[in-house]
């Protein structure tokens, strides 16, 4: 047994490497990014030729992983929760095709929205797709469950979803790793029509998936990841899902809880265990670090059964991540509070780095837009979203990857002319290209600003699929050559940049302006590495 100090994300990555994956597919997104990064940095992964490159988006990643599964090898695909929206078409249908080699999907949810635009719970997606879901309570379980997920997926011939949350993803602890397995050999599906979802075949496959539900539930009862911890005080029974189990334990020094606890780590729920707890206890408290999914199911629409406590009745807050104190209050425990934060402590929100190219680009855009007034800049997801805040206050939307261009089209259709879209390079190749094609076909009077810092900046500088390709993509999508302008976003070119933007704002068709300057963080990193290489040579 090797014991390693790992983040939850890294525990999953190490388990996948040990579990004999042949490839991992992903698009960067907090809190899931470190899974791919760990595989990319792993010597073992390199020696074993494990494919580990960033995909253009979560959908392409999911489909590539499905293709690897088709070919009989073990594949993993990782994303943040909202990435699963992007991949949803492939995800839901992969449940209908089923897997050949194992297919494990990792969705990292972000309750409390530390780095996200919502806190949707990926367990809904797993339930929707009718596949097994695993939800670890700690980093060791993240490792063990990932290993188990590969085994389960291959045994049942279905994709398996593993759902984690930020706190587990980004917390480090000692993890014991078990013996590595070999990769699968190439092996086609026994039935070469398994992946052909023509209606007649899809109907058959869907019935097969429905038929497997009993088996999945049996697996949930047998795996040991759902277990009853008996105790004497049956006035209350507690259902603790995933990470919430730790917050529950934290409230009992010595680890002895006076109420029976059903610890949940695998879905579909084992009905026998749930029913045993429900029947034997007066009231039930449901702890879920996400949406109140089980709680809602237990209450039912009319809530006429036993008292079910949780997020829906106010015992726990309706939104946000759980923590030991919130869970303690739900159990009637008292918690200490240190002294209050003094008034002089001011907020320190995140902001664009000193020397960031986005800053210069938005200063120029803001000035060029003065004659038109505020409120016409649609933007997207990345570091540049921070330009919504003071002092720039340059953008008016951030919804989902790629929405800047398409929202600008709709706003222009409504008469808001000119409408501006501001999107990053990586976001553009993730989901902006199809929108730009719409704009060209529509001849929309919009100005698209592709902020090209040549990296995926917000998540820490991963390789951007767009690198070196943007100008040709834009040309290829049909934007007129004379309306494609590349700028150098530097203070000293401010006036010329403002003039170029002004000119394009006046044009009654699609313009694309590309302010191009490397991310200051990746530039500094490169310089440090260069300096280090130089000293090494001496």
């Amino acid at each position, binding site marked *: 047994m090797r014991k390693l100090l790992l983040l939850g994300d890294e525990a999953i990555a190490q388990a996948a490497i040990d579990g004999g994956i042949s490839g991992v597919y992903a698009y960067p997104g907090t809190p899931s990014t470190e899974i791919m990064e760990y595989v990319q940095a792993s010597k073992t992964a390199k020696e074993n030729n494990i494919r580990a490159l960033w995909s253009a988006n979560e959908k392409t990643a999911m489909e590539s992983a499905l293709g690897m599964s088709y070919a009989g090898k073990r594949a993993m695909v990782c994303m943040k929760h909202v990435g699963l929206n992007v991949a949803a078409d492939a995800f839901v249908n992969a449940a209908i095709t089923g897997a050949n080699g194992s297919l494990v999907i990792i969705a990292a949810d972000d309750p409390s929205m530390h780095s996200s635009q919502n806190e949707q719970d990926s367990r809904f997606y797993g339930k929707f797709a009718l596949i097994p879901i695993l939800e670890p309570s700690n980093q060791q379980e993240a490792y063990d469950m990932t290993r188990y997920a590969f085994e389960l997926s291959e045994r049942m011939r279905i994709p398996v979803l593993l759902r984690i949350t930020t706190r587990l993803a*980004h917390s*480090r602890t000692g993890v014991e790793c078990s013996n590595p397995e070999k990769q699968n050999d190439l092996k086609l599906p026994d039935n070469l029509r398994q992946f052909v979802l023509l209606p007649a075949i899809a109907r058959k496959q869907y019935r097969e998936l429905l038929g497997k539900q009993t088996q999945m539930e049996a697996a949930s009862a047998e795996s040991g990841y759902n277990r009853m911890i008996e105790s004497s005080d049956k006035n209350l029974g507690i259902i603790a899902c995933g990470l919430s189990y730790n917050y529950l334990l934290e409230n009992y020094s010595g680890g002895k809880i006076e109420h029976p606890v059903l610890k949940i780590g695998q879905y579909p729920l084992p009905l026998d265990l749930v029913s045993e707890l429900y029947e034997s206890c007066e009231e039930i408290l449901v702890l879920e670090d996400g949406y109140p999914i089980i709680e809602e199911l237990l209450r039912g629409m009319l809530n006429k059964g036993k008292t079910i406590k949780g997020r829906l009745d106010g015992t726990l807050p309706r939104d946000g991540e759980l923590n030991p104190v919130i869970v303690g209050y739900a159990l009637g425990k008292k918690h200490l509070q240190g002294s209050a934060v003094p008034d002089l402590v001011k907020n320190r929100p995140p902001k664009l780095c000193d020397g960031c190219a986005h800053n210069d680009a938005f200063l120029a855009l803001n000035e060029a837009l003065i004659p038109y007034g505020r409120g016409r800049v649609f933007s997207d997801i990345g570091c540049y979203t921070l330009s919504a805040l003071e002092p720039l206050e340059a953008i008016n939307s951030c919804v989902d990857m790629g929405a800047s261009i398409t929202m600008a089209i709709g706003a222009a259709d409504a008469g808001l002319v000119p409408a501006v879209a501001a999107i990053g390079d990586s976001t553009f190749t993730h989901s902006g290209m199809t929108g730009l094609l719409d704009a060209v076909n529509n001849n929309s009077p919009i100005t698209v600003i592709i902020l090209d810092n040549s990296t995926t900046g917000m998540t820490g500088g991963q390789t951007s699929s767009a690198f070196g390709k943007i100008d040709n993509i834009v040309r290829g999508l049909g934007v007129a050559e004379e309306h494609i302008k590349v700028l150098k976003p530097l203070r000293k070119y401010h006036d010329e940049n403002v003039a170029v933007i002004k000119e394009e704002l006046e044009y009654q068709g699609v313009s694309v302006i590309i302010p191009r300057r490397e991310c200051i963080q990746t530039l500094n990193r490169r310089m440090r590495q260069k300096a280090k290489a130089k000293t090494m040579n001496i």
Partner: protein
Amino acid sequence: MKKDIILAGVGGQGILSIAACIGLAAMEESLYLKQAEVHGMSQRGGAVQSNLRLSSDPIASDLIPTGKADLIIAVEPMESLRYLPMLDPDGWIITSINPFINIPDYPEMEDLMKEIWKLPRYITLDANSMAKDCGSIKAANMVVLGAATPFLGLEQSSIESAVKNLFKNKGDEIVELNLKAVLAGREHALKQM
């Protein structure tokens, strides 16, 4: 043995290096450890913190409950006060007094220091100058780590071997510099306690 520690600073100031050193030292002493970090959006010049828990028994929660932190280790004075609700009534604050001013309404230094001086147990240090005296201002976070060492319940030798481990790829000179910084911080704290 059980130590719950909040590490506080501004994104990019190196609190994760402090956490890594304490983590490695705790591993060397075969302690259990959990360390919740902040990645992603908040790293861009915003307030960042890390929950670090060490114990001779298994640790349940990745997060420290309010009022239970034994220590707040801060590399920035205003940030040292942001997490006061987390601090145990008997807990200590160890903080650098070098401000990182990247907001327009940063408080006056004098007022800030008065707030810190009101606390029952604190160590304050001019980590930047002390690091400069050791050879480089970049070691300021290691000076702060050093000032925290008398409160960690870890052997000084484990801390030192962790520092060696963490910086070994950067050459002997950098290792020596950081060890010196840790020692300087430690001596300062021992005098102020």
